[in-house]
């Protein structure tokens, strides 16, 4: 993927993550039911969170590298 697409993908991913943990989407999972002993909304939030981690992991590997700073301080600065 080219740089523009990747950056757009990162933005879409961030916004989708934000929406996933905000009402009204979170309201979809308030069922008053349990699965493996855990309330559904707990499972949903942790799954969404894990999804963010996985997405961020994939994006971190894919995102383009920035050119070094033109006047970066010498060494490892």
């Amino acid at each position, binding site marked *: 993927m080219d740089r523009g697409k990747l950056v757009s993908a990162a933005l879409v991913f961030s916004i989708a993550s934000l929406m996933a943990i905000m009402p009204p989407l979170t309201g979809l999972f308030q069922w008053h039911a349990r699965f493996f002993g855990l309330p559904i909304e707990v499972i949903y939030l942790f799954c969404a969170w894990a999804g963010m981690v996985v997405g961020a992991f994939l994006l971190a590997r894919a995102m383009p590298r920035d050119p070094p700073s033109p006047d*970066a301080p010498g*060494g490892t600065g």
Partner: protein
Amino acid sequence: MLSADLVIATAIAYVGLLFLIAYVGDRRTRNRPGGLLRSPLVYTLSISVYCTSWTFYGAVGSAARNGLEYLAIYLGPTLVFIGWWFILRRLVRISHEQRITSVADLLSSRFGKSSRLAVLVTVIAVIAIAPYIALQLKAVTSSIQAIAGTSEMARGRLTGIDEVGLAFGIAAGMALFTILFGTRNVDAKEQHHGVVAAIAFEAVVKLTALIAVGVFVIYAGGGFEGIFSTAEAAGVEIYSSDTFGTRWVAMNLLSFAAIICLPRQFQITVVENSDENHLRTASWAFPLYMLAMSLFILPIALYGLTSMPEGANPDMFVLTLPLFAGHESLALFAFIGGFSSATSMIIVESIALSIMVSNHIVMPVVLRLASDARASDGRGVSRLLLNSRRFSIVLILALGFAYFYLTRDSDALAPIGLISFAGVAQFLPAILAALFWREASIKAATAAVAVGFVVWAWSSFLPSFESTSTTVAAIMAKGPWGITWLRPEALFGLEGLDPLVHAVFWSLFLNTATLAVVSLLTSRSALERLQTNLFVNVFGRTSGSGQTFMRGSAAVNDLFFVAQRVLGDERAVALFGNEASESGQVWTDLEPTPAFIGRLERELAGSIGAASAHVMLSKVVSGDAISLEEVMQMADETQQAIEYSQQLEKTSAELRSTADQLEIANRQLRDLDQAKDEFLSQVSHEVRTPMTAIRAFSEILLEAEDLKGAEREKFISTIHKESLRLTTLLDEILDLSALERGERGWENQPVDAESVLEQAVHVCHALARQRAMTIRLARRAKAATVSADPDRLGQVLINLISNAIKYNSTEHPQVTVSSRIVDGAYCVEVADNGPGIAKAERGKIFEKFYRGRRAGAALTGAGLGLAISRQIVARMNGKLELIEGTRRGACFRVTLPLLKAEAMAGE
């Protein structure tokens, strides 16, 4: 048996271990850059300083009281990190380039290196963080008391020491520890590798401790199923009915802001970052760390609620659950985990705040007081910096303790932390504007932060003293001086909201509105505009920031003196030596270039902040220092001068070209004037000859009365002939002048040129016979329609043919007339076999009165025939020219364009 003495001894031993790790870490990074200590792993672990004892103890308390709400504190930062590309990446790059050392430095640098804004941000940060420090003190105090409270025996040496005394002891110990830890030396980049190593170690300790307690709880409670079922049976609300409301949104927003704005997070994530790419790893690893930390919080809370006796503090479940179950070693581990999270927070927070206080408050004051930076006593700026930092650390912990003391009656941990979060969140609008909005101005940023702070202090900070102060309680209930719409938790009459949501809404709303409106109403200074470009366009620039505001003529010794004081001997020598070797000059003769002074300013900024570095260097090179405004003004003036001179140049070029045109016109006029004179003199001459003859003959006729009839007749006929010639001449002159001025009415019409030619040849036959010569008709065009005046065309052809007849003096004179069609044009050529026209005369024969020197030819014409002919042909869009004939003699050619249809047919 676990006692207070034992845990305190363990805590001290643990601190010793941390100190050792920091010491080794510092030495290892100094000797060998890179390696594990500068790896993305250690970087990520150190960022987890975000998880303090608020997380370790408070999250369980929060989950016990409000269910899933505690997750909001970790989801906000998760969003910031998975969106690292948009905010954190920019912050890190900008901070590396500009040697930013803190949030205050960041905002000050972006908004024109303003020291006022830096001071404001620093003061707000110190005040807003006080509750957070108090939270840590409270957590550690409570944890020690929880252990001490198990039995009379367990109190040990704590007997007789109350909560406040214990907290004071902890605060003092922490201050001492932080001073030893963080202020051993001043690093130019404000990086503390040893501290980071210790923090990373603590991150591992607190995570394993919390997971260990979590595993224990899951095991003891019979798995998730068992814990949730028991809780549901005991009447605990396990489903979140109203979790995802406004409070959820507000807490997510606050934690989003906190991970960027908290001084310690900025210090660890941005300032201590040694490689921009570490952020890539942290973008997923840090959310993963928080996920792991949060995983067992809810089960621990629910298990605590069902298994612990009524009235047990839920904030201490992590510690009291294993203690209650008799797992003393696990309880000790949990204590160390909680202690770890508190110490790491306090260490990094007070280091970060002390850098802000010393760089933005103490240093500027000292610099202002000392009339000359060089005249300050010999201890150097470096020492001064360290002392001011030590003082700041003591001040910060004292403030934290004071807050703890004043609010000691409130019990829950989480609300205290949220007060701090809401306080530092006031920086968020300004930071985002600094990164993304060019129009944001210093006045707007200062006003916005100030307004946000005041609203926060009124609606969030003040209410926390409600339980200890009756004045505050009265204000809360009735408003100040009875003004009800100013009640802290119902500002402007907005009632019924959760106090946190209320405070967050009003403070951030008014903050952002002020930022936007004031930015639109004010303009930015020159320095602000420069800095804006460096910030907003950080990844778009290709050349160096190279902004230098000093002339390059400062004495190298003065500069070195300053560098030595601030950076230390070693670094100063390295910096100047490097410059000397790069420029190929001897060290002592070094001429500091503006670029070098700029680099020096950045290096200094890394130690004492951008604003202070600017002031300091301005002072040292005061003899030569010019303000940026002056530079910009000079640049403006130069630009104006350049534009003005360009205008002048343009105008003078125009003038030159006009003058050239005038000169050409003048020359033409002179030529014309001369031509007119010549013409007049020629005309006079031409007129005079016949007039003389007429006069002479008429005088003879008048005076000589004895003239014979034949003679008289001859004279009269001569007079008549000369009069005719005169009339013809005048007619021709009039004709020519009318043609030249275009006065004569002229109408071209389609004409068959061949018949006109036929006619002309016919007319000339008589003259030819008179001269005993022939007109030879050579090749002829069949038919040619041209646009012409037939009479005039005939006149031209007759003139040419008759000239050819008249001026032919050879023995067998002959005139050849031919016509043809060439390239859509009709050509008539009239050639004779006479003497021809000398080369020198060829250019002149079309001039007026030029007759040519044709040997033996009688001068019968006025010399206007060819001039008139040429004018006529020109009026018919044709061409009359003298060409090189195939034989000797002259050859004239008339070329007339064919009418279009005719041209097509002819080709």
